[in-house]
């Protein structure tokens, strides 16, 4: 089974993706399920609209789409309430973007939301990259504070903080790497052959609509791995994290 760990539905500054189009791409590529988060505006600002959008899309998908919940931590107790509301609407994981939502991973703002995720047994996706508020190493420190919660290091620090991905994964055993954008013959090989990491700590995502989904899947399919390990990357690990 192939499960896409991260897609954004709705519209962002330069992109747009409908549930209808996403399902079409999944059918074309043989992707069975996808975790869907709301697009940029709803991640940053109108969380309620975004949570309802992905909840509706999931409900209409026959189990193919699995909703993330989002809430801007600056909303304080209202953010906690919004996550609980999203959980009641079917959300199965939390998606965080500290750049779009305007906070620092270690400033404490996100912690009440992580308490909700822990209570619900949700994995937490955190977008990483070059912004100082979205680096892999602080995420590893954050993940260590919630050792029972699986954290997905979205984009694995792409691109110039790929060098931090392995140390972050070694530091936090409950942190998982993300394959999107990462060449198998440089980054994924390094992570996969590391005895403290290995392919079972990596999850496949297309990061649509920012990418060419076929190219993202092809890269993982081209990666010389035994089929068990490939199955873990393409969905096995993520399905376990989702319970």
């Amino acid at each position: 089974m192939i499960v896409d760990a991260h897609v954004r539905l709705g519209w962002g500054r330069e992109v747009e993706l409908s549930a209808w189009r996403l399902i079409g791409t999944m059918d074309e590529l043989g992707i069975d399920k996808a975790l869907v988060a709301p697009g940029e505006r709803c991640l940053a600002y109108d969380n309620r609209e975004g949570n309802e959008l992905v909840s509706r899309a999931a409900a209409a998908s026959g189990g193919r789409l699995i909703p993330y919940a989002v809430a801007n931590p600056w909303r304080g107790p209202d953010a906690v309430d919004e996550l609980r509301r999203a959980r009641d609407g079917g959300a199965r994981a939390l998606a965080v973007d500290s750049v779009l939502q305007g906070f620092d991973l270690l400033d404490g703002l996100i912690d009440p939301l992580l308490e909700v995720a822990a209570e619900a047994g949700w994995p937490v996706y955190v977008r990483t990259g070059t912004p100082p508020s979205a680096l892999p190493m602080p995420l590893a420190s954050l993940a260590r504070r919630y050792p029972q919660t699986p954290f997905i290091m979205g984009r694995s620090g792409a691109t110039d903080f790929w060098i931090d991905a392995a140390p972050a994964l070694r530091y936090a055993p409950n942190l998982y790497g993300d394959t999107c954008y990462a060449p198998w013959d440089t980054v994924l090989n390094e992570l996969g052959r590391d005895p403290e990491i290995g392919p079972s700590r990596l999850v496949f995502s297309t990061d649509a609509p920012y990418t060419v989904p076929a190219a993202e899947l092809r890269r993982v399919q081209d990666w010389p791995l035994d089929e068990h390990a490939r199955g873990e990357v393409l969905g096995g690990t993520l399905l376990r994290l989702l319970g």
Partner: protein
Amino acid sequence: MIDFHTHTPSWRTKSWLGGVPFGADEFVAFMDSAGIEHALVLSHDGLFDATPETNDDLAAFVARHPDRLTGFGTVHPRKPDAADEVDRMLGRLGLRGLKLHPWLQGFSMHELALDPICEALAARGGILLSHDGTPPYSTAGQIAALARRHPTLPVVLGHGGLHDTWRESLALTVETDNLYLCICGTPPYAAREILARAPGHKVLFGTDAGLSDRKSQDYAVARVAEIDGWGITDAQRRAMLVDNPRALLAADR
């Protein structure tokens, strides 16, 4: 097509950028497999230890296939003989430009030591290609400030701002006459936006080949293939892959 951003292997340094060693013949075989007719080959060892020997190595590498490979050497701007080395690179060694990587090499584009280097480069009709997309020392605004100090020197943003500063790279390419942008490791949605909004003659493409665990440079082949899914026009594709790099390389020679 012309690939405006590739690297030699590292021969003299323990580069964390990794990759297997390969020769010029093997590199041209990779280019053939990806449909690349010509490649700009940038220094690799020199990014970690910029010595004249690393430029000699690069010149020997591209000299095996002068019709297919063009070299860009490097210097460290704080070395007192850096401008002389730029002159030697473009003169005796036959290289075509200078690659700088401010965060790997550890300097700021605002340092005045860069001025005589850029003057020597401009005097030879050379091109400057800089890594961009990585704060603190490799942002387009910083690189454009240097470009404005040397308005006759073509300056190329080597990575189109990567994932997090591509909007800045696009904006500075629009507002800076002698600044060009190479899409290389830039995500597809950003590439599409850049091609739609940048001046049509200013966008280039590179694979960053040379850093793979395999001589076949699989990720670079995949990056070329991925262009089919970007959703760009045939005219944009041709300008980026053929016309723009050809015109830039032909200018001032």
